[in-house]
């Protein structure tokens, strides 16, 4: 029972490099989300998707792009990494949005930008 799987678990990048974080869920959930967690800030929503082929901006979208080409996958891209993007990134999914649909989270990707 995999749930939500994030790849990779750790990564170190140099400023200006690009990379893609992969999130995969096997629960047939419609909604998927990307968050970042910084010390003293809680979790903040970067981008989300309400279904295959859709994406929408969250609270802190700048510097990130996302794609949802397949229902089970949600990709988060950093085109030109900056030290301010050093964070722990969490992916989550839910069957639908709103009431009584708790989000299921992956175990996170720890990203350091030097």
């Amino acid at each position, binding site marked *: 029972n995999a749930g939500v799987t994030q790849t990779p678990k750790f990564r170190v990048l140099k400023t200006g490099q690009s990379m893609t974080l992969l999130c995969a869920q096997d629960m047939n959930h419609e909604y998927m989300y990307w968050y970042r967690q910084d010390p003293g800030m809680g*979790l903040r929503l970067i981008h989300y998707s309400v279904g295959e082929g859709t994406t929408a901006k969250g609270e802190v979208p700048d510097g990130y792009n996302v794609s949802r080409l397949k229902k089970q996958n949600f990709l988060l891209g950093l085109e030109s990494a900056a030290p301010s993007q050093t964070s722990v990134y*969490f992916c989550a999914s839910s069957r639908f949005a709103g009431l009584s649909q708790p989000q299921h989270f992956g175990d*996170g990707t720890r990203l350091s930008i030097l």
Partner: protein
Amino acid sequence: DQQVKQNSPSLSVQEGRISILNCDYTNSMFDYFLWYKKYPAEGPTFLISISSIKDKNEDGRFTVFLNKSAKHLSLHIVPSQPGDSAVYFCAALRGNTDKLIFGTGTRLQVFP
């Protein structure tokens, strides 16, 4: 502008006693509240929730209380166990919007 606030960054409680974690919010449009629990190197896991039409929801050792007039909710854990040691996040949702707003978390340590 922090719409959901957890003003206590940490809490230490003896095993068997009650743990009370607090959360305050500013947006009166929130109508659903959730608590998530997070262990190190793992993602948050859903613990318990409450709708704004209720003032209490109970699930085993966990009870969430909501005071709408004070815009305050609390999570009670009774009795506390060492396995409850984790970071607890309060989160809020408005209607059928897609976006959870998280608090900054409270680290609970339960000692023997």
